[in-house]
């Protein structure tokens, strides 16, 4: 597949070794007050990680682990009652600002979609239901692509071919397409401007397995070709195994383990990760799986210290009143656990 002859309003950034995304100690909370009931939810509570150029970084965790809040914060989609209370989110293409929510609107408009794009969860409803698809492409991508209307249209059609969609799709309304087709349109939409960074939020969850495989293949194909980095969020460990280069495990608003995907699956260190990995069914297995006791904590009133300690088989005394920090236990492999790292000195 040849690259479409598209020219952009700005030049590409030179390749360097800086991480494309750098998150340091990010804390984002929900504050709600309604009819006298105040709730303060610490959805993201001190997260630090990097995403390198050209890599697919996976983020795994259960539904209330805070991963969606994390990526919303990274993408700058911060509206009340969500607020960022601390930490920084720095993109290589937007240096000097602590986060998208702190940057001036003109800069944010410049990088949105051109450098940072988003594939949203649930392809059901992400496209404007009363407009034909070509309008969505015009709205999202046209401001960033120089050239005449004809050239733009040709670029869009060529790009759609990459995700195996016909040009006729542009004249359709979203409800006229199947779920899989809509998701492919979304992928095309998110990649047409050749962004440096793509956030993918559960892009395959609503799809059946066969379509899922296709879509994942497309994402990887396009990513390799464009050279974007992808922050891929899903609770489905099988998808992570299939797609991601590195994997971060989240639990209750914190990162508990991070390593290359292969290592996470082969040698999981954190008790929660080990439980996740061991609960994956394997062909030929005949040992019954055991579930973890208890339930994920209520983020409005989380347990003190390590948030996993009430359910942890290795819990020690220190776990209930000190928060373990992420320590590089093996090269490229970080874990936040007192049982693994020992009782560090403060």
């Amino acid at each position, binding site marked *: 597949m040849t690259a479409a002859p598209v020219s952009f309003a700005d030049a590409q950034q030179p390749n360097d070794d800086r991480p494309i995304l750098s998150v340091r100690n990010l804390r984002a909370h929900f504050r*709600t*007050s309604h*009819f*006298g009931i105040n709730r303060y939810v610490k959805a993201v509570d001190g997260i630090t990680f990097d995403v390198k150029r050209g890599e697919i970084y996976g983020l795994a965790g259960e539904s209330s682990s805070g991963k969606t809040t994390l990526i919303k914060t990274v993408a700058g989609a911060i509206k009340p009652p969500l607020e960022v209370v601390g930490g920084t989110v720095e993109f290589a293409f937007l240096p000097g600002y602590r986060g998208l929510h702190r940057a001036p609107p003109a800069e944010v408009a410049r990088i949105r979609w051109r450098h940072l794009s988003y594939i949203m969860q649930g392809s059901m409803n992400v496209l404007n239901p009363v407009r034909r698809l070509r309008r969505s492409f015009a709205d999202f991508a046209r401001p960033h692509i120089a050239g005449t209307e004809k050239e733009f249209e040709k670029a869009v059609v060529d790009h759609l071919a990459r995700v195996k969609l016909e040009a006729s799709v542009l004249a359709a309304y979203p409800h006229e397409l199947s779920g899989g087709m809509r998701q492919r349109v979304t992928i095309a939409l998110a990649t047409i401007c050749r962004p440096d960074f793509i956030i993918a939020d559960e892009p395959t969850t609503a799809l059946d397995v066969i379509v899922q495989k296709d879509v994942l293949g497309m994402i990887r194909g396009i990513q390799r070709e464009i050279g974007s980095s992808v922050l891929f969020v899903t609770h489905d460990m099988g998808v992570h195994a299939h797609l991601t280069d590195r994997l971060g495990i989240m639990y209750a608003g914190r990162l508990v383990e991070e390593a290359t995907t292969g290592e996470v699956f082969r040698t999981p260190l954190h008790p929660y990760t080990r439980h996740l990995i061991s609960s994956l069914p394997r062909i030929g297995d005949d040992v019954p799986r055991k579930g973890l006791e208890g339930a994920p904590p209520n983020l409005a009133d989380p347990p003190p210290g390590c948030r996993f300690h009430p359910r942890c088989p290795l819990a020690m005394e220190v776990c209930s009143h000190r928060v373990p920090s992420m320590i590089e236990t093996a090269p490229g492999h970080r874990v936040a656990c007192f049982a693994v790292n020992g009782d560090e000195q403060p």
Partner: protein
Amino acid sequence: MLGILRDLLRYNAEFRIGIVLVGFVLLLSMLASFSPYPPQDVYVVPPDVPPSLAYWFGTTSRGQDVFWQLTFAIRNTLLFGCTVALISRVLALVIGLLSGYKGGWIDRVLMSINDTFIVIPLLPILVLFYFVMRDSMSWLMLALIMACLGWAYDARLIRSVAMSLKTREFTQSSVFSGMSTREILVQEHLPYVMPIVFSTTMNNMIWSIGLEVTLAVLGFTDINTPTIGGMIYWANQHTAMVAGVWWWIAFPTVVVIMTFIGLFLLAVSMNEYIDPRSRLSRMGRVIS
């Protein structure tokens, strides 16, 4: 139930204002029992006296005390609104629940009829009724007629709730346990539908009272029973505005506007409390 009321009172300004307005109007209507003058009597006090200490709201050109007349008027008007609301709730519930639950051709037929009643302009029909029945149209008769014409909009709302309930698990288990349609509708679905019924009751009252005021002002109702519209009608008959007897029109107008705004605010605040989505969109308030 009381907890909800307490929450609404404390945190929702609209509800507070609504309760105050409606409370005041209710108080007025209850005072009617203490009126020294029977409501239908005329020329019991000197006519056309402006508001004063002796006659708080002044007197009319027919020699009636505006204040005491107003208490009867608002009481009858409110009774009228409640009657219509009650009867049309029953109709709306029966049709809405049945239509939503049964589906199929029953639903299609009922909804076609339903939509007919939504579309048809009701005032000409009511005028036609009046034309044909003239003096034998008591307010009870009018209430009955309006109730039989005014259930359509709310029936649709109830029907959509019923349709969503149909697919829920507890409905399926009720069916499997052998409950009849009537039992399911009454025992299982009715509690879910009640919140909508409450808020539509307010709107229905506003609608029916408004229509009654319109008809009465034109003289198309039983004008001897005092109602708000009736007072305005008589005021017009005696050209009160031109004659400068502004208090005859002003006070009933103010009271009916208070009633409407009060009922409307109650409906809006109750709706908001019930609807989870509007609750979420309000969640932007930070703790002070």
